[in-house]
């Protein structure tokens, strides 16, 4: 009877943005020394009681009423910023003698759904745990709901399914249906993800490395077989050989794919670095990460970590200014460091971009002059001046900090990246920021190469860096032999004659015949282009990269070697360095 009136009187749940708290005190509440009034007074300290309905529940006829028993019930619309847990704690002592139901306000709904979304999807949790985790329900509420669930199980026959927990929770008015639905969806998503992760197996990286080495040998052997078949004139075997070659190519690609990992994990590690450093420097810095799904060889990822850390610390320490300095420059007080990665012609490009102070070219130049690295009257382009930052011992910072600025970092960074057959470029505008771009090969093991011949030697150019091949026709080209420039369709292109560069003895006859067969291979790396003049074009070749031994480590222009099907050795050109040589 009291309840029927209540439906009408209780504040409308749909329209309000209040916590809906319903309390029904048990018969023994008063005898146990509880005074419901005191709880309500205390509740008032957490927020504002917007409206309250007081009613009597389950009260017998007047004569049978025990005045010391409690029949009071309350419905409260409560306005508060407190979380569910602290509201529930108000009634902590009443827990045993009171049926407490707390329904969060509408505005909390979105908050809960947001929390649900941000939960990690690594572990499969039970629905109740998820809801407790985001604070939508409390442990106590969960306990009660589970209790009533198991009660029902006992009551009903064995065949009947126990009622879902979510349903019970919604019915008990402790949580909104939308939150339960959201949690169930999240649970489903996590389940899928966990199931997917279960498909992975952990493999020792060494075993994988060994496999890739073997695949490399297989590639060489397959090339050797192909050559034997071709020269031996076993035409009947050609079809089989081409089939095997195709398969070997697939095996190679797949084997390399096994070692590919997303760079995102490496990137996210820098979030902590940025947070810690910005805190210790008193700067406000956001780290923006894009292209985290870009894949590259695990061995490369491992080796790029240190240089990246160094570059990011540079950006944090030297690049981004203090908030007040930024404000005075008219920039937002919070600086941004942008980490980006993407694939570009067989390479991975990693960019570290900050919107900080930029590099001071004049100071760089002054330092370099003081150290005698350049002459005061030397004409240098902006790019060349910026490149000075990679010179050992050069720092623009007057004062070295414990993070960076000792002038020993950038040359090590450059060396590390070049050891990976990559290159690093820097671009900077004063007060606009600095962008550092790193180009790295996708893998260190096997590449698609382009074989050329100069003299009697074979050279491999990574295919991804080959732009085009054109015939060297001396008449049609405005060949500048002194400064080694060629006019390629109106474009000034520096070129390098490999035969001259590697000082290969020209054992051919004095005649100019082969000169007319010379070809120009246009290569590009990043933004720079150059031409290599070669005698022969052999075409594409699967190239297994073999590192050169210690003896040849310091060779300029050579990054490795490979074994050809014939058993001969071909050198792999370090295109990056050679372009530099050609342009110099």
């Amino acid at each position, binding site marked *: 009877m009291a309840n029927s009136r209540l439906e009408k009187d209780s504040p409308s749940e749909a329209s309000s943005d209040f916590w809906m708290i319903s309390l029904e*005190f048990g018969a023994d509440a*008063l005898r146990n020394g509880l*005074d*419901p*009034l005191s709880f*309500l*007074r205390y509740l*008032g300290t957490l927020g504002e*009681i917007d*409206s*309250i*309905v*007081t009613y*009597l529940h389950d*009260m017998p006829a*007047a*004569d049978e*009423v*025990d*005045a*010391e028993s*409690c*029949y*009071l019930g*309350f419905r409260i619309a409560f306005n508060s910023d407190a979380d569910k847990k602290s509201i529930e704690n108000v009634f902590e002592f009443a827990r045993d003698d009171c049926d407490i139901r707390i329904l969060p306000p509408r505005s909390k709904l979105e908050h809960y759904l947001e929390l649900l979304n941000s939960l990690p999807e690594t572990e499969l949790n039970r629905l109740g745990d998820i809801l407790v985790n985001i604070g939508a329900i409390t442990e106590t509420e969960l306990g009660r709901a589970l209790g009533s669930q198991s009660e029902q199980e006992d009551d009903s026959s064995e065949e009947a399914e126990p009622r879902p927990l979510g349903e019970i929770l919604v019915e008990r008015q402790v949580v909104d249906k939308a939150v339960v639905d959201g949690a169930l969806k999240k649970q489903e998503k996590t389940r899928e993800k966990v199931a997917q992760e279960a498909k992975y197996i952990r493999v020792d990286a060494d075993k994988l490395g060994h496999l890739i080495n073997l695949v490399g040998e297989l590639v060489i052997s397959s090339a050797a077989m192909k050559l034997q078949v071709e020269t031996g004139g076993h035409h009947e075997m050609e079809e089989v050989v081409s089939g095997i070659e195709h398969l070997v190519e697939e095996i190679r690609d797949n084997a390399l794919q096994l070692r590919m990992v997303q760079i995102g994990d490496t990137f996210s590690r820098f979030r902590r670095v940025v947070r810690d450093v910005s805190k210790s420097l008193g700067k406000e810095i956001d780290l923006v990460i894009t292209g985290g799904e870009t894949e590259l060889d695990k061995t490369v990822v491992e080796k790029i970590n240190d240089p990246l850390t160094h570059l990011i610390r540079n950006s944090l320490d030297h690049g981004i200014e203090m908030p007040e300095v930024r404000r005075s420059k008219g920039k937002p007080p919070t600086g941004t460091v942008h980490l980006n990665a993407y694939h570009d012609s067989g390479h991975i490009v990693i960019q570290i971009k900050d919107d900080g102070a930029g590099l001071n070219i004049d100071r760089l130049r002054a330092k370099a002059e003081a150290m005698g690295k350049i002459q005061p009257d030397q004409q240098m382009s902006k790019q060349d001046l910026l490149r000075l930052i990679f010179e050992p011992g050069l720092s623009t910072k007057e004062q070295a900090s414990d993070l960076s600025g000792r002038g020993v970092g950038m040359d090590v960074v450059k060396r590390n990246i070049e050891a990976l057959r990559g290159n690093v470029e820097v671009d900077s505008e004063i007060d606009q920021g600095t962008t550092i771009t790193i180009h790295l090969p996708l893998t260190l093991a096997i590449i698609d190469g382009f074989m050329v011949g100069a003299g009697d030697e074979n050279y491999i150019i990574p295919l991804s860096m080959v732009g085009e091949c054109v015939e060297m026709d001396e008449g049609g080209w405005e060949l500048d032999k002194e400064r080694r420039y060629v006019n390629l369709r109106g474009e000034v292109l520096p070129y390098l004659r490999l035969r001259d560069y590697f000082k290969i003895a020209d054992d051919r006859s004095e005649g100019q015949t082969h000169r007319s067969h010379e070809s120009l291979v246009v290569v590009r790396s990043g933004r720079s282009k150059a031409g290599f003049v070669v005698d022969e074009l052999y075409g594409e070749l699967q190239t297994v990269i073999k590192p050169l031994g210690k003896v040849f480590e310091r060779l300029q222009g050579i990054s490795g070697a490979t074994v050809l099907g014939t058993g001969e050795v071909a050198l792999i050109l370090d295109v990056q360095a050679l372009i530099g040589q050609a342009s110099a």
Partner: protein
Amino acid sequence: MRKKAPSSVELTSMSLGEEVTIYHIAQLKEDLLGKFNQSQGLELDLSGVQEMDSAGVQLLMLLKRESEEKAKPLHLINHSQPVVAIFELLDLSSHFGDPLVIPAEWQKS
């Protein structure tokens, strides 16, 4: 909701003591209910109440229920300050339907 007592009905007057709390509630209930049942209607003077707890509130609500069920008037008059405070907290003044007289010097605590 509120039923006007017919003017012919003779209201029995009664006033409550200082404490309307769980400690005397059983006795109080017997007294009040007894009196209410015998009378044509009850006028309850609350001016002397210095302390009231949940049990007291509950007792008043019980009386109100009885008055509605039996169509006998129940008037609460001269609410003391502690009673007003509790009625405010629980939003009960409209439930009982009696005019609250708030003295000018009364300050919300």
